[in-house]
């Protein structure tokens, strides 16, 4: 009997929703937008997370990054901390258990010329290992070698965007470009890498670390990022501690001072980003919850209007024998169904937005909506339908049949 009542209520609710097609759509618009927002945000964040994790995978699990920390407070106090080339040399000679250690100098923007063409590029100074760290694959020519670094050769590996901007030939190997005041020979062209987070990764020039140091002159303002790859991953903590001790000594930090540098493993980096993304997800989820709440209030409002509007109909049904729970169920199903339909439409729209965003951003993975997001948003819509439908439905069920029949 109960199942029968449910099915009949379901049928009646469906008919009623169809009879007021456009109004039903407007009623559930709040839910549609809310759910579409959840799904779009979640799918984009998932894509972002995937991309970032993929970027860090290149670092390997057994790598450590050392870089300076310049907080805003310290900066306004005029304290600028740096990892100097001397720090790099000290670490490369005095830490045990290191497989490879490589310096990266992210130079300021330089103007690069070829013939009459000029372009602005960030020139990076590094060594052979940067190829692995930066996930650079060579299309023509070769990457920097250790020898280039030691002999401070005036050579450069360029990205595809630089080649295009400078109107270099398709295979630019052997051409000479001018970086600042120095002439450099192009020895390699990197494969295209596309954009990440809106940043063009192909607008780059890599020159040897030694060369970078020599052309920036003998000033000690260089800030080096040091990339360490361990031979044995179990040595991770030992190496980390050793690096910290050496750098604190070198930077003459008193025991009470905080580190003015940061030693991070690639796992820590990944988890930092994931924490940020999780926070973004939670904040977005909160906003969406509010929008679903507003959507639910809209549904309740329309359902109350609908109950009033159909007072006479309810009176008729009661006169011919409808019990309270039968009326209650019909109206409850109506709001539940409205919300579920809204949720499903929102799901499709949200997925569409996610897919569109993924397609619009180069190198972004295809939109993936995890099952938990689908279940959560559909479940939440159903919950909204039940919670906000119960009051109008109870109002309908408790109408007095005589009063309801008299209602004009």
């Amino acid at each position, binding site marked *: 009997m109960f199942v029968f009542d449910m099915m009949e209520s379901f049928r009646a609710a469906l008919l*009623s929703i169809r009879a007021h097609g456009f109004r039903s759509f407007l009623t559930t618009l709040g839910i549609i937008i809310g759910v579409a927002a959840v799904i779009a945000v979640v799918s984009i964040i998932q894509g972002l997370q995937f991309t970032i994790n993929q970027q860090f995978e290149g670092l390997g699990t057994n790598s450590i990054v050392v870089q300076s920390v310049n907080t805003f407070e310290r900066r306004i106090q005029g304290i600028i901390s740096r990892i100097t080339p001397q720090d790099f040399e000290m670490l490369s000679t005095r830490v045990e258990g290191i497989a490879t250690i490589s310096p990266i100098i992210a130079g300021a923007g330089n103007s690069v010329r070829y013939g009459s063409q000029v372009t602005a590029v960030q020139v990076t100074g590094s060594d052979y290992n940067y190829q692995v760290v930066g996930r650079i694959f060579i299309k023509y020519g070769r990457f920097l070698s250790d020898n280039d670094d030691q002999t401070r050769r005036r050579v450069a590996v360029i990205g595809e965007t630089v080649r295009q901007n400078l109107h270099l030939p398709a295979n630019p190997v052997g051409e000479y470009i001018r970086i600042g005041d120095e002439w450099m020979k192009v020895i390699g062209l990197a494969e295209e890498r596309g954009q990440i987070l809106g940043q063009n990764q192909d607008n780059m020039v890599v020159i040897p670390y030694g060369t970078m140091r020599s052309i920036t002159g003998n000033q000690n303002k260089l800030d080096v990022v040091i990339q360490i790859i361990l031979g044995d991953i179990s040595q991770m903590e030992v190496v980390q501690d050793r690096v910290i001790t050496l750098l604190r000594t070198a930077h003459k930090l008193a025991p009470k001072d905080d580190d003015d540098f940061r030693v991070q493993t690639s796992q820590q980096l990944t988890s930092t980003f994931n924490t940020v993304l999780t926070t973004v997800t939670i904040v977005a989820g909160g906003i969406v919850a509010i929008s679903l709440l507003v959507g639910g209030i809209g549904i309740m409002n329309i359902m109350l209007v609908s109950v009033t509007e159909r007072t006479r109909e309810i009176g008729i049904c009661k006169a011919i024998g409808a019990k309270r729970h039968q009326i209650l169920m019909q109206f409850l199903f109506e709001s539940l169904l409205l919300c579920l339909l809204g949720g499903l439409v929102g799901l499709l729209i949200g997925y569409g937005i996610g897919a569109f965003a993924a397609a619009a951003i180069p190198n972004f993975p295809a939109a993936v909506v995890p099952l938990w997001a689908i279940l959560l948003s559909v479940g939440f819509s159903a919950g909204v339908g039940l919670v906000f439908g119960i009051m109008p439905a109870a109002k309908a069920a408790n109408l007095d049949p005589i009063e309801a029949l008299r209602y004009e």
Partner: protein
Amino acid sequence: MSLIQINNLVKEYVMGENILRALDGVNLGIERNDYVAITGTSGSGKSTMLNVLGCLDRPTSGNYVLNGKDVGHLDPDELAEIRNREIGFIFQSFNLLTRATALQNVMQPLVYQGVPLHERKRRAEEALNHVNLGNRMDHLPNQLSGGQRQRVAVARALVTKPSILLADEPTGNLDSRTTVEIMKLFDELHKQNQTIIIVTHEPEIANHCLRIVRLEDGRVAEDRRKS
């Protein structure tokens, strides 16, 4: 045993500080297969009588035994069940569900009995054929004439095979030609052994019935059987 036995029925309404006694000790017995008109001027208590007889309302005191069951003091859901099984309502303003077809309207009372769809459909079609509307089943109420709408309502009242057909001014919204048509239908139903109670203030309608009960100030003033 009578189909309806009413003893000393009182119905009071509280209107602000005053208590309005709409029914003031009504005694009435109605046998199976009777054809009764309840008449009276406005304010005589006929509407209250209809509501109580139709189990839409509960009496303040007194007994109402319908088909061997004391229905005077049931709760709203039990009353709904009695209305569904024992009573077929016919209203002055038809009271059809506007968004449902004639067939769906007639099927509706059976939904509340838990009758499966195909069975509901069969019985509703039978009822509509009974009132000569077999060719109008898929029409919405606003596509039907007044007489046809009232016949749909009669079919809806009959479909559950109720003990009583309870009509409230059934011809009040109809023209004279259609009135004749509907009253002929009632006469026929009576010949088929249906118990019918018509609440009306029109003498011509009341004259179709075999027995006329006239109410005045909430009491039975006259109870006359046509010879």
